[in-house]
């Protein structure tokens, strides 16, 4: 069972929620797909770390064989190649690794080379298997890392996917195989805007979904109003709480520190599990 946790912007509580839900389960897998700034591992402090480099394939040109026919340039939909003063130039960061240019080159001047763009780390933190995707600074797309990290997740294990913020390609790949999506929302108008972004996305992907309202304070909650208007199920509320914030800011896992929070997230986990099975 795979549960993705997403939100329209950073800082709404995706990691707070996915880390604590994962830690509440008897046994679970936590996957940090926020490869540009993974931080779940700071809470879990996993041990027995194993690391696997993630590479992508990009074309490499043998200048002695290239005759400047430009078949590769004409083929590439992403314009990752240019021919300048009798020299073929490859823009690795624009390349989508389709390999088409290599197949089309009549002179066999192009071959594929692997370049490392990041890594996947796996480790253990008590009852939780922790997988972390890490994109190297300066690389343009973390999608290959997301694809790899989600590839061999065991269907039978309860898995929490901590998504990158927003609703771009990298998030689509993160939720693609999820059985359920939890959207985390803040109680502000800006929060509604961000919630709407991910709401549009989960609808597009036809995923069963629910909302957790985070940082709840007394008084009006625009995100709650939005959910009621759109008939989106609210599966839980997390209060704006000083103690919670303090523990979280020290990179401590709430449910491992305090029974009050253990009860709160266990209840939420039960609701989520029930929702997924519906």
């Amino acid at each position, binding site marked *: 069972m795979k549960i993705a946790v997403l939100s329209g912007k950073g800082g709404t509580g995706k990691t707070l929620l996915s880390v604590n839900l994962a830690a509440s389960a008897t046994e679970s897998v936590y996957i940090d797909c926020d490869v540009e700034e993974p931080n779940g591992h700071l809470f879990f402090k996993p041990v027995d770390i194993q690391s696997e480099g993630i590479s992508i394939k990009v074309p490499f040109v043998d200048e002695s064989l290239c005759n400047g026919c430009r078949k590769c*340039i004409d083929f*590439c*939909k*992403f*314009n*990752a*190649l*240019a*021919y*300048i*003063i009798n*020299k073929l*130039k490859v*823009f690795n960061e*624009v390349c989508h690794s389709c390999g088409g240019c290599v197949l089309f080159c009549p002179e066999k001047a192009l071959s594929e080379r692997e370049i490392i763009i990041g890594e996947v780390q796996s480790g253990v933190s008590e009852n939780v298997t922790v997988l972390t995707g890490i994109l190297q600074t300066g690389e343009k797309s973390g999608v290959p890392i997301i694809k790899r990290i989600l590839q061999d997740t065991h269907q039978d294990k309860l898995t929490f996917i901590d998504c990158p913020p927003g609703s771009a390609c990298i998030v689509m790949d993160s939720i693609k195989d999820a059985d359920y999506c939890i959207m985390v929302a803040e109680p502000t108008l800006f929060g509604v805007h961000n919630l709407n972004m991910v709401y549009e996305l989960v609808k597009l992907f036809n995923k069963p979904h629910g909302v957790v309202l985070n940082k709840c304070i007394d008084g009006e909650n625009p995100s709650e109003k939005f959910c009621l208007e759109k008939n989106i199920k609210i599966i839980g509320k997390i209060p704006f709480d000083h103690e919670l914030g303090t523990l979280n800011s020290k990179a401590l896992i709430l449910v491992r520190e305090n029974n009050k929070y253990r009860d709160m997230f266990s209840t939420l986990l039960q609701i989520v599990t029930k929702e997924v099975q519906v």
Partner: protein
Amino acid sequence: MKIAIPVNDKSMEAGVCDSFGRTPYYLIYDTESKESIFLDNSAVASQGGAGIKAAQTVVDNKVNALLTPRCGENAAEVIRAANIQLYKTINDSIKDNIDALNEGKLSFLVDIHPGFHGHGGK
């Protein structure tokens, strides 16, 4: 000297386009013969890498200089590799910019942006 300018229409009265990679047309202008040609920008609807493809067009037309309000880093890399001078336009008038170039009053474009990649850039 042969120059290229991204323009909004196929006319010498048209405005200079804000975007280099996604401009609808290019003016290729010869400052000696005063001859002008307008080219369609085939990169305008590209899924990605518009700047690279647009720069390829400019390079293939063997211009000596590109006059543009701004330019992304990939396009600039192609332009520079082809030893084409990159100038910053002063306003949106084609004539004013050509005059300024002839009088040596245009400065080089140095603030190369990292690209918009589907994220707008008005």
